[in-house]
């Protein structure tokens, strides 16, 4: 599948934004962060900025962005519609939480809980969009949604620890959340990769022409000599050759670097912690960008069996 920049930006930025929103709301609720206006403004402001940027980026994926408002209508059947509804609905408690925190200097418990719940629900819907796509076997597996949720939490918590350190606060609460979420997320991701590699094909060239069991079957006359939108969208192949190397890079930048950096930052504490937590955020951002690019680039669609692939 083609890794469209709009979708890479949307899933990574909004994922981190919703993760940060949940972490900041819960840390505020349980008193791990002070109910001071500046603390609320910086943390919730950045979370909402990331979420909004991601949502705006996603509209660049549309052929007719002027009709995006219609995506709120089909929540009864469509995960994409549910995601749109959840994403916008989460703004209500998030703005309420931010308003009370910044203007009133207090953390509203219902707003904090609803913000965290809305954030989790939105990312859950994002995962379900991909996990329910039967023709793309690598995405159509039970772990797809947990991986999205865990990576959103890990990136949001890491970002939260960095912000706390920047504000001169104790980064222990978001930092500990990140130290737990990072290995969980990348462990799930590793398992997701392995299961995706080991799965049996769901379609073969022989089955594609209604003659399962026939061997060999090979394409001799392509249906068209020129391009098509469908092939541009589903026939992306660049990643295959470098996939193993890119996975190691994603793990290195996304897990192996940020975890010890974050742990050191928490251990050192104070202003010196910034020397470790800022590079941890940057490394994780790079690791996530590679991971998300591979998520699309490595995924193959069953339509490939009509275009020369033996099995998908």
């Amino acid at each position, binding site marked *: 599948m083609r890794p469209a920049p709009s979708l890479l930006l949307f899933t990574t930025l909004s994922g981190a934004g919703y993760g940060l929103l949940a972490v900041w709301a819960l840390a505020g609720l349980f008193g791990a962060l002070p109910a001071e206006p500046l603390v609320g403004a910086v943390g919730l402001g950045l979370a909402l900025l990331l979420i909004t940027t991601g949502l705006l980026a996603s509209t660049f994926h549309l052929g007719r962005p002027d009709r995006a408002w219609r995506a709120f209508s089909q929540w009864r059947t469509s995960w994409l519609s549910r995601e749109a509804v959840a994403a916008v609905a989460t703004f209500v408690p998030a703005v309420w939480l931010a308003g009370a925190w910044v203007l009133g200097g207090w953390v509203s418990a219902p707003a904090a809980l609803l913000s965290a719940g809305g954030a989790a629900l939105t990312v859950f819907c994002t995962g379900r969009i991909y996990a329910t796509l039967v023709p793309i076997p690598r995405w159509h597996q039970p772990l797809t949604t947990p991986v999205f949720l865990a990576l959103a939490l890990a990136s949001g918590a890491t970002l939260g620890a960095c912000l706390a350190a920047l504000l001169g606060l104790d980064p222990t609460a978001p930092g500990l959340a990140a130290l737990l979420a990072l290995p969980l997320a990348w462990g799930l991701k590793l398992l997701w990769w392995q299961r995706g590699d080991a799965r049996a094909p769901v379609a073969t060239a022989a089955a594609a022409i209604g003659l399962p069991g026939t061997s060999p079957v090979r394409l001799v006359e392509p249906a068209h000599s020129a391009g098509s939108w469908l092939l541009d969208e589903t026939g992306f192949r660049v990643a295959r050759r470098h996939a193993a190397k890119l996975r190691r890079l994603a793990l290195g930048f996304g897990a192996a670097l940020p975890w010890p950096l974050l742990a050191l930052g928490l251990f050192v504490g104070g202003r010196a912690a910034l020397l470790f937590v800022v590079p941890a955020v940057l490394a994780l951002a790079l690791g996530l960008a590679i991971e998300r690019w591979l998520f699309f680039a490595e995924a193959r669609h069953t*339509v490939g069996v009509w275009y020369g692939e033996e099995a998908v």
Partner: protein
Amino acid sequence: MTALPDPPPARRLGLVIDLDTCVGCQACVVACKEWNGGGAAGPLGDLEPWGRAPSGTWLNRVHGFEAGEGEAGRTVYFPRSCLHCENALCVTVCPTGASYKRAEDGIVLVDESKCMGCGLCAWACPYGARELDRPSGVMKKCTLCVDRIGDPSLPEEDRVPACVAACPARARHFGDLGDPESPVSRLVAERGGVELLPELGYRPTNRYLPPRPRRRLEASGERLEDAPATGGFLGWLDRLLGG
């Protein structure tokens, strides 16, 4: 509404395509592009149609395959278009309500005035039946020529999809696959018509008729051998030449 009709439509209009007689001439492909370029599904946009890298929207494509080896080997032309599935995931994933399945005959359609061009339905279709039209930014797909099959102003023999009308090999048949007594259902029963990729669970309406078993070479006539020339002019010539 992108919910599928419940209960599933009893009438299931669709195509039965004979892989034995399809010669891969692409007439159905061109007829489809021509009719739907201007009809209810039109226009079907092309980018750089006379340029170096042309690309465009087509609702029907024919792929040429070689299947099997040696005596069992054959060429199979495979026409691919929307199969109008009963369990159409392309409809239920649609976030805007543009995609729908008609309750009266099961035809899967796109209301282009609602489509926002997100492309998710094309991802959800395992058969690659949907293409986003780049010039207009909306999704296009086979309509089974709803603007032909339901048009009372056309002569009755023309109320079939353009691809069916165009096929010179009579390899394409149109009818109600929900009625076991319809000509297309009887054809499917007679020829052992198959459902494409049934394990994916989409329950497509269209059926493909597999190629008939090939007759063995020995049965097709005497092998060409040296005939003994015993009499007449050829016998004399044979003897003269020292046979």
